[in-house]
């Protein structure tokens, strides 16, 4: 077991290093420029709501930047390794089991996104300080919102990884993006289903529970208006994401375990 953990850690570290050296974190420069620029701009043009505007814009950007990176890197996690045949020397002649490889790649990307989110958050809080000149206890809700965004990354990475095990990068990108869009409207889908009758109601309801619920992980508007997020919701969402991501990564392992690497 200790050896497995060491191998998974080695693969995760390599995945992180690859992302850093491929200049993925350069997106931080764009993000920082965007958030700081906007903070200066809204400080000039809005009256009283400049904090709300900045929180909405900053957190939405953290969410979208991370999701895009999760999709772009996630879709190549396995397929790129197969295409370039880099995994031949990892799983063929090393005591690395296929599930260890998948788990290592997944952890590496989640780690990359976490570091990315931490840096974007630092830039965001810097911009907030620039605008409001101080932070208060109510801003703790912003940390919860960022934690929820991290949970979104975990979901997205798992889905992109799953698609990457059986499909081309282009198709994986399309599938992942569609899942994000549908998942962002999961609550609306459930609402429509409840209004429908007959089989449509059950199909709609079933679908709304099967798709990843990105909507429930979006508390940006709530925290922008300083409405606190309950501790039970944090716990519930954490358990939900862990279970959902666990199921998706298990599917990825299952597919990869039986895949011929031509």
């Amino acid at each position: 077991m200790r050896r497995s953990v060491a191998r998974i850690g080695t693969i995760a570290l390599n995945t992180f290093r690859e992302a850093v050296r491929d200049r993925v974190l350069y997106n931080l420069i764009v993000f920082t420029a965007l958030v700081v620029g906007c903070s200066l701009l809204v400080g000039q043009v809005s009256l009283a709501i400049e904090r709300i505007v900045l929180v909405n814009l900053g957190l939405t950007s953290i969410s979208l930047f991370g999701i895009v990176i999760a999709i772009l890197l996630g879709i190549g996690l396995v397929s790129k390794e197969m295409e370039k045949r880099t995994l031949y020397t990892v799983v063929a002649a090393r005591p690395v089991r296929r599930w260890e490889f998948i788990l290592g790649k997944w952890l590496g990307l989640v780690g990359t996104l976490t570091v990315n989110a931490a840096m974007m958050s630092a830039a965001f809080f810097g911009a907030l300080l620039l605008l409001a000149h101080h932070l208060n206890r109510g801003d703790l809700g912003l940390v919860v919102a960022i934690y929820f965004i991290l949970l979104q990354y975990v979901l997205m990475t798992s889905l992109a990884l799953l698609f990457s095990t059986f499909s081309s990068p282009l198709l994986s990108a399309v599938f992942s993006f569609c899942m994000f869009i549908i998942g962002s409207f999961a609550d609306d889908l459930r609402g429509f289903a409840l209004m429908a009758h007959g089989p449509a109601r059950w199909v709609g309801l079933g679908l709304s529970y099967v798709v990843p619920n990105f909507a429930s992980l979006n508390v940006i508007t709530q925290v922008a208006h300083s409405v606190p997020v309950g501790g039970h919701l944090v716990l519930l969402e954490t358990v939900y994401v862990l279970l959902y991501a666990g199921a998706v990564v298990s599917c990825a392992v299952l597919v990869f375990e039986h895949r011929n690497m031509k």
Partner: protein
Amino acid sequence: MAAIETFGLEKTYKVGFWRKRPRRALKPLTLAVEEGEVFGFLGPNGAGKTTTLRLLMGLVFPTSGSARILDRELDDPEMKRQIGFLPEQPYFYDHLTAAELLHYYARLSGVDPRERSRRVDKVLARVGMEEHRNLQLRKFSKGMLQRVGIAQAIVHEPRLLFFDEPMSGLDPIGRREMRDLMQELNEEGKTIFFSTHILSDAESLCDRVAVLHEGELRDIGVVADIAREVSGQVELLWNGVAALPAISVLGGKCHATRDTVRAVLPERSLDAALDALRAKGCRLISVTPVRITLEDYFLSKLHAKPAEPEVRA
């Protein structure tokens, strides 16, 4: 103990987009490679060499049959710790430097952390890459990548090595160095199983060769025995062109350079040819039996019937 054993190992792929049809890449293959030998897997492109290697490496799953390496199952991690693999035209993580890549593979192979740096330095020196240890692999030439490929295959000091077309893409000097390295590794007691279609490499390195064609094992031969075999032809060398027509009539293929003539003819015509030379007053220089080369053997097996499976005690 056999280092590699296959029992009716077979692979059929499904090809086509809509109507999938089967394509047999490897017909049932039964063979055994003994520990300590250099075993060459010969065949033209598309013969099934790479498929066999991928099956043995657990990259693809057999349609039927099975195989054992070092007397263990193909997915046994303990066995994998003892083997090294160089794929054809290897490609590695190009964001890493040569030293980082080898550290990465050493870690995955479970090399003791206290040993790791020493092993990496040793293999880098062995493949002549110590100067480029801190250069990212994206800046490497094909030949340099091949050297790093060898280094990653031996960094954990395996007992058994699998090389898929190890000489492909190398210049003559690189090929020579690779041959020398493979010889050294074998002298250290490592078993080497390698696929190639370059027969001269196989001839100089291998103890035994298997010929594969269209996914079918055609024969397994001992290189030393093949080299001892004679072809039933003799080569005559003499001075004087006067005997040329007489030798040609006897079925000799003649080639004259000024006054010196070289002819290859059936062994049964040798006496008559010597009489003809004497009659025309020519001076005989040499008579040599023509030996079978690996190339002759290889070509003859490509058109021969498939080999019977090896019988083991």
